[in-house]
């Protein structure tokens, strides 16, 4: 666990500095741990949706990570919160005790499960230009600069539009 903590924290710090590849590796590694964690805590059927929701939250709220602190407790607190919130929204009364943050790293499952709530469908609810931009980046693997040119955004405006779209997406995921 200590090793994983060191690796994840290193990736997080590089991601916060703007290193997209490190950020992608971090989120990819976390996905495996989150999937196993949610499944173990009784949310098997919704595990993949919860993974996606938590990754979105971790991404959008990553500025709340205090770089002087260990990374795992921060990520665990987000995951624990998302699990509680999930049960609350479903109207399920279920105790989810706060455990030692290490449980998040206890196991991992790299196999993606099926999603119930498809983010692509939620993307469809975004304004057309934002959706086109996001899909261009996602589907075709275009960089933001390239997608921006194709969709008639300046690169700066495209970055802002993508960030806002992700925030909207996170809001829709919760409703």
């Amino acid at each position, binding site marked *: 666990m200590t090793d994983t903590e060191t690796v994840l924290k290193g990736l997080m710090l590089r*991601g916060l500095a*703007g290193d997209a590849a490190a950020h*992608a590796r971090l989120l990819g590694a976390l*996905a495996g741990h989150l999937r196993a964690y949610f499944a173990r805590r009784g949310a098997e059927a919704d595990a993949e949706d919860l993974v996606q929701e938590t990754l979105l939250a971790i991404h959008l*709220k990553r500025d709340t990570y205090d770089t002087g602190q260990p990374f795992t407790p921060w*990520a665990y607190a987000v995951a624990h*919160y998302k699990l509680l919130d999930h049960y609350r929204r479903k109207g399920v009364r279920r105790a989810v005790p706060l455990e030692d943050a290490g449980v998040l790293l206890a196991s991992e499952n790299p196999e993606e499960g099926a*999603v119930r709530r498809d983010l692509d469908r939620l993307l469809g609810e975004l304004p057309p230009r934002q959706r086109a931009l996001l899909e261009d980046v*996602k589907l075709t693997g275009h*960089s933001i600069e390239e997608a921006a040119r194709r969709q008639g955004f300046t690169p700066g405006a495209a970055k802002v539009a993508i960030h806002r779209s992700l925030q909207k997406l996170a809001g829709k995921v919760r409703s």
Partner: protein
Amino acid sequence: MKTQELVALLAEDTRPTRAPAFGPLLLGAALAGAVVSAVVLAAWLGFRPLLPAMHSPHFWMKAGYTTLLAAAALLAGVRLARPGGRIGAALLLGGVTVAWLAMMAGHETMRASPGAMPKLWFGDSWNLCPFRILALAAPIFAVVIWVMRRMAPTRPALAGAAAGLLAGAVGATVYGLYCEETTAAFVLVWYSLGMAACAGLGAAVGSRLLRW
């Protein structure tokens, strides 16, 4: 959308990110709210004569109590605004502050004659004080909770309680600019009751408004 695709999409949104200074942000919010409260107080009840009051240790005892509790609530709020934040230090500061005033109140009680007890514990305004603190805390709470909404509290009710206590303690400090009660016993009971009510309401509001 597959999770892998989501990860790739999120990675495209990677920009250098620096942590916002939560302490100064929340403090600024509380102070901005305090200015509004002070204006409300001036228009509503007015200030007591402040220069003579400042020569009295009672004035500073009261201001010290509410300010220290505000500091404890601010510390708790800063910690709770981040996932995984711990509030042990804030609880300790709050606990020591209450214990300090309780000792002063005990000292007063032991020295007072039996006939002076009602005045000591109830003053002249016990039935108004908690409500006035609640009223003065409202604008502060509005600003603080608005700022806290942009953070990421993973314990929304607790974070709301911290926001409520911060608003209540700052509101109580503002109220001290009017209130002429001077005993530690009065402050210990009625000021604390007003601030606790703020914390309770804050918890209820926070558990709804602070979700993300």
